[in-house]
């Protein structure tokens, strides 16, 4: 019988497809809210349409998250609320363990859901009225709090994996940051992709790609940190069978970087002739980035299992 590194004699939790897509949508939900908030904080009124796309995306992705998590519970799905309430006979009460990312995450998702809903509703009502529903200052304060929660939602899934005794996952501290950077890249890609349905949002496109470039650079740095830390722990052989997924993830990062570079050139040239090409590029780049976001999570999740 062959044993791997001494630290890891664990069983796999079999967190597979539901969890993969939960991680994907959690990254997009939190990332979109954060990006939308940053757009609003720019103080540029013409960024507002793009910001509202971000809040809509965030709500839709957030709604999918608890559905996927509940489905993952299988036949115990009716007990999803046990994450929040301890039903131990005689000791019934609120469940909150700050040292267990799954416990904190369950509460985080609930509270963030409230922020995502209110912000999307505010965006929708403002769209219908044709003018902002809430004074900008109040809106921004609310959005900043929501963005902090969004950043948590996009990143805690990586920390949750690390806070285990699984090979690969527990061998690196980089997963929280990696999932956050990737979620932000994916969010900018998705908002950029959806701009085609809201032409007035196109004003923000080039700067969105620029932000995606920064997020992709961060992601690339953290992928390197991931491989270095996992390599140092001796569990790299578990990652190697999933190199095809890693290649897709890196392709997504590269697309984000190349897209940012291309749009910065267009910005500097300031020419409208390149606009049609830019929009075509956006579709290709955005799709590549989104596939990369999914592939990254799949590579990480499957490496340990």
């Amino acid at each position: 019988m062959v044993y791997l590194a001494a630290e890891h004699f664990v069983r796999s939790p079999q967190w597979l497809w539901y969890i993969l897509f939960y991680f994907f949508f959690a990254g997009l939900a939190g990332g979109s809210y954060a990006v939308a908030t940053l757009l609003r904080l720019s103080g540029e009124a013409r960024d507002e349409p793009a910001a509202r796309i971000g809040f809509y995306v965030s709500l839709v992705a957030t709604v999918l998250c608890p559905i996927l998590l509940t489905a993952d519970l299988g036949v115990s799905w009716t007990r999803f609320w046990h994450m929040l309430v301890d039903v131990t006979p005689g000791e019934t009460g609120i469940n909150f363990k700050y040292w267990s990312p799954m416990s904190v995450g369950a509460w985080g998702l609930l509270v963030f859901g409230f922020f995502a809903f209110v912000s999307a509703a505010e965006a929708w009502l403002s769209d219908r009225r044709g003018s902002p529903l809430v004074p900008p200052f109040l809106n921004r304060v609310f959005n900043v709090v929501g963005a902090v929660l969004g950043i948590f939602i996009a990143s805690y899934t990586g920390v949750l994996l690390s806070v285990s005794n699984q090979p690969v996952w527990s061998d690196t501290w980089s997963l929280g940051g990696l999932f956050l950077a990737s979620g932000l890249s994916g969010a900018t890609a998705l908002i950029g992709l959806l701009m085609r349905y809201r032409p007035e949002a196109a004003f923000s496109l080039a700067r969105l790609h620029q932000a995606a470039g920064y997020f992709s650079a961060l992601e690339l740095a953290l992928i390197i940190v991931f491989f270095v830390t996992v390599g140092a722990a001796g569990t790299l052989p578990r990652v190697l069978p999933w190199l095809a997924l890693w290649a897709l993830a890196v392709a997504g990062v590269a697309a984000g970087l190349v897209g940012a570079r291309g749009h910065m050139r267009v910005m500097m040239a300031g020419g409208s002739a390149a606009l049609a090409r830019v929009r075509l590029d956006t579709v290709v780049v955005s799709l590549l980035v989104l596939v990369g976001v999914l592939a990254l999570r799949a590579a990480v999740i499957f490496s340990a299992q």
Partner: protein
Amino acid sequence: MPTIKAGEEYGFFTDTSVCIGCKACEVACKEWNQLEGNNPTFLADSFDNTGDLDAQNWRHVKFIEHVPDQSATTGDGTAWLMMSDVCKHCKHASCMEVCPTGAIIRTEFNTVFIQQDVCNGCRNCIAACPYGVIGMNQQTGTAHKCTLCYDRLQGGLEPACAKACPTQSIQFGPLADLQQAADVRLATLHSQGQTQAQLYGRDDKVYGGLNAFFLLMDKPETYGLPNADNAKLPSRNDLGGYVGAAITAVLAIVGGLIAFRRRGMG
């Protein structure tokens, strides 16, 4: 067998030096706990066909087979190692640490128990248990493992596996008594020249001490047990994980603010 009282610490001392691999403990466990068992399979890599601890196997006699390629003659063969593995009922239990529902509790006998009516099948405990003890029962959708026969203890009976063990490899009793017995047995083995014999989980070096501890005839890794250097709690990564995420968040926000800053574009 002393009277079993709530409020006292109980556990198992498994002496692998006298285990004969009969698997009576596995059978007794299944019978008492009404575990159907997995479908019979032929693993073909060992004389052991149980495989692993899981939702249907709460006791598992591991066979560690150092069978030499060459025929062994008297004195140069390597004996098989056998070990009846079980939940360790750790003082600092990884499963209990991460469980988000509060389903995993410490009982009045200081054992670790999964409340079936509270568990919701999230499987975080499976990802955390460093011994691969916990498995999912697909029928109930909950996590299962050895209960140290909680129901038998409440009725004043010793666990089924210990009761059935024909060689006293599995001993049950108050933890202090077991530790004393283990020290005596270790000294005896050492005096007989079995210097590789060692206790695992007897002291607090592994997860604060194990209520189900072992006498091993080789190093822990040989038996699929993390050694003291590698026995770590999942929460060790809380700080690093969150700090890494926080630093990333700060850098990302700075990047976003730079990208989205107002700059008079037409």
